[in-house]
């Protein structure tokens, strides 16, 4: 019986395993150095905040794996021998495979800052990170102030987490406005205000120069590059993005760049070795997408795709329209299609922006300036229906059409106030002023 080994029990590895089991009787082994069972990384913040127990984050009960004949192995793979098709574990153990799927995910970026390896300095990615957070920042007595470096999605989650335990937080963001590489100006500004409303000391245009140590090898302060200001703190969260977690592949002969290089079929340069999820890097970008996509659902889709290929139906990875979502303190965010921020915005892309006077809801619709064709939409504080937005993108609807039919796409709970007519009015006003 063919033996499929998957390194990594995150969403991509687990999805691959589940679908291979659905499609075949192959022997499946799922390897992880992190946890005995699959848990949801996206829920890490809720464990620390006390919304959920660790048990609650497991999408499948513990009996599920045995019932579906998916072998689980805990251990860290530190070497792969592709000619003998053998994995070597750090504890000396080995296993052989017929097909290998690399799904090892990411690790937090560290850009060589002085002091980045001190105690009390860490990213937020793994279960172990969460355990360390409990050591260095369990409450505001042990941790009188925390500093977060890097204004992205994980940074804002970490800020919310620490804030939930009344730990004062200073949030260093290199950019002049939060996440403005991705978010258009108006939205990014609104999120700045939301962060501040929640009592976070947000420092824009501020980057980290160095982290200072006390005499026990633990962080005692950081220094801001732009101002040389020294901020005393007991914890530093490094949340300046993630990179593929693939250093163990260095001498394996598997081609890597930032991530494991794969073609559209998710195949690496070695036969019978595939890579999916956060750690896979496309040789050629797909559409507007980045070559490495560190998000949940792309990992899941790659897992579904690779299962087909491994079970004899070789198909390419063909993601549909881009979408994503996040939450900034109390403001939910959804995006469908492409709405660019400062970075990489094509010349033809133009925006219509609406913001509610309460400063906690806004939308931005991106369209082609010549054809008026709808390119994408960002919403904050308003939920939209995925299928409708997806359909509009596929049907290449115009902005007029989208604005007029916005109500169809509304996905807010029943009895919520609707803003479509406000938005339509604002839309008409904008275009009248442009025309006149």
């Amino acid at each position, binding site marked *: 019986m063919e033996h499929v080994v998957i390194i990594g029990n995150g*969403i991509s590895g687990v999805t691959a395993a589940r*679908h291979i089991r659905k499609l075949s009787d192959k022997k499946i082994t799922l390897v992880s150095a992190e946890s005995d069972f699959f848990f*949801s990384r*996206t*829920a890490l913040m*809720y*464990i*620390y*905040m*006390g*919304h*959920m*127990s*660790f048990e*609650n*984050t*497991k*999408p499948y*009960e513990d009996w599920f794996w045995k019932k579906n004949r998916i072998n689980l192995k805990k251990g860290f793979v530190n070497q792969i021998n592709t000619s003998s098709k053998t994995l070597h574990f750090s504890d000396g153990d080995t296993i052989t495979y017929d097909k290998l799927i690399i799904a090892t995910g990411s690790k937090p970026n560290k850009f060589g800052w002085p002091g980045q390896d001190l105690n009390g300095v860490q990213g937020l990615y793994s279960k172990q990170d*969460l*355990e360390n957070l*409990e050591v260095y920042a*369990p*409450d505001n007595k042990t941790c009188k102030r925390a500093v977060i470096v890097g204004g992205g999605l994980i940074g804002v989650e970490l800020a919310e987490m620490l804030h*939930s*335990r*009344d*730990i004062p937080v200073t949030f260093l963001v290199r950019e002049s406005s939060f996440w403005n590489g991705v978010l258009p100006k108006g939205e990014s500004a609104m999120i700045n205000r939301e962060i501040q*409303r929640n009592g976070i000391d947000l420092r824009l245009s501020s980057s980290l120069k160095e982290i200072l140590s006390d005499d026990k090898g633990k962080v005692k302060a950081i220094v801001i590059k732009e101002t040389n200001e020294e901020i005393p703190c007991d914890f530093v969260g490094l949340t300046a993005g993630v990179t593929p977690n693939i250093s163990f592949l260095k001498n394996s002969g598997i081609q890597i760049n930032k991530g494991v290089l794969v073609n559209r079929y998710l195949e690496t340069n070695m036969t019978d070795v595939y890579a999916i999820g956060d750690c896979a890097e496309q040789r050629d970008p797909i559409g507007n997408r980045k070559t490495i996509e560190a998000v*949940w*659902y792309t990992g*899941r*889709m790659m897992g*579904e*795709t690779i299962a*087909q290929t491994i079970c004899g139906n070789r*198909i390419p990875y*063909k993601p*549909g*329209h*881009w*979408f994503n*979502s*996040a*939450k900034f*303190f*109390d403001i*939910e965010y*959804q995006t469908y299609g492409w709405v660019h921020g400062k970075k990489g915005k094509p010349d033809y892309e133009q925006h219509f922006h609406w913001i509610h006077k309460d400063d906690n809801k806004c939308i931005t619709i991106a369209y082609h300036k010549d054809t008026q064709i709808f390119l994408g939409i960002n919403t904050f504080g308003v*939920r939209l*229906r*995925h*299928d409708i937005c*997806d359909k509009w993108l596929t049907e290449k609807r115009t902005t007029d059409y989208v604005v007029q039919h916005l109500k169809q796409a509304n*996905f807010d*709970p*029943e*009895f*919520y*106030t609707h803003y479509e007519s406000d938005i339509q009015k604002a839309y008409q006003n904008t275009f009248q002023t442009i025309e006149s």
Partner: protein
Amino acid sequence: MSIAKPDAYKNSTRQKALIATGIIGLFVLVLSLFNFESFSALTLTASLTLIVVSICGFAADRYLSKPAGIKNNGVWFKSISSKGFYGWLTGLVLTLFYIVLYFYPHFLGLGGKGKANSGLVAFFDPLSQLLNGNPASQWFVYGTLYTIAILAFGYKFLLKYRHNRYERLRTYSVMFFQLAFAFLIPEFMARLNSDSFSLPYYDLKNIWPLNYYNFEQYRVDSFISAGDIGLALLIFGVVSIFVITPILTYKYGKRWYCSWVCGCGGLAETAGDPFRHLSDKRQMAWKIERWVIHSVLVFVVLMTTAVIHSYLGDDTSTYWLTKGTFLIMVTGFLSLIFILTMVFKRHELGKDARYGAIGYVVIITALIGMHYFSGSNLFLFEAETLRSTYGFLIGAIFSGVIGTGFYPIFGSRVWCRFGCPMAAILGFQQRLFSRFRITTNGGQCISCGNCSTYCEMGIDVRAYAQKGENIVRSSCVGCGICSAVCPRGVLKLENNSIKGRINPNEILLGNDVDLMDLVNQK
């Protein structure tokens, strides 16, 4: 994983003072058991006011100091809401209270048989006199405290979910129905009664089988003897079951009752809210749930049939409804439902069809048995024995002692999930003949599990959401909390066309269409 219990969640001094206020209020109630002469209507007012001030003040202090939004911070760290010491203590005290209330009301000071009330019951006499003109009973005491709990904790819930209009309206609704229908109206109805006129006053929204005793002989007799009003009430009782309930459930799902109207649901949603995450999510629990709740349903159908059967006559010339006709009607009605379900909905039911068939066979066999053994015996049991057993096991032990007493241990909807026969009937309809469903939003789910954690019915919402599958579950009471706590806007409760309501495919948007087809091939 061991997570230290952080002390960021300790109560502030102000909060401690507010809790103390409530404890003093409760302590006065306990003191009243010792019959202090000086206790008066004023003392009662003071005690109840202290309790209300404590709950509302605490809620305001807790929630209004923070921006509106989902604030479940520390739920799993606090002793009371994570089965810690205070959780168990509360559970124990509540359970004891229920046992005394149901089985030893004289400990509370219930008089009766010409003896005046004393203790706690007497303490409530002035209020009872004011509302219905009679001395209090243990049920009056309980009803008052129950209503206060729903109102005060309802206020807390309103603040906690002040950003969510669905939750707010729903809570106003349960608060209204509890205060007006469950509490005040029956008291006023009682006031209308005199020696010459006696109406069985009751909570009108309490529909059979929740109100399992509604069709007992003494009640039916008194309905009929109360003339037109009584007859209207009796007819209303029957119409509620056969007409109003099915229509509303078809249009809105069982939530119209379970989380907008019902008193048991009302208490679970308000006072029980801090415990909702304690419900058991394991698949095992789901299996047990289905067996237990449907057994209760079979039990109540048989019991009620037997009770009505026992007081009907045999002679068609005195009254058209005889024992025989009645049994034929019941059998016919159940068979009709069974056949219609099997013909139209078999494929949707899958394995459940087997359980349905078992329940049906049990009932029908019993009905036939009833006919042949006729008289008052159903096999070995008297109808009355059956009724009192039901009243004891289900009405008292299950819905009271376990259902509410165990809030801090098993979560807030144990009764609604495992025991309530009304929920079983509404759930059956919701599953098969209703426009209600929870729609999932394409591929947006990140499997975080907030929805499953906070589902008080123990539904593993995430299992559906992460597959892009709508949630059509008989047990869903439509509380809307899964949708509220979802950080990614994945869930929406809605009433929509029946077509496409159940979509058991793994339709995950964002994928390329060919792959979706492949994944869905079975």
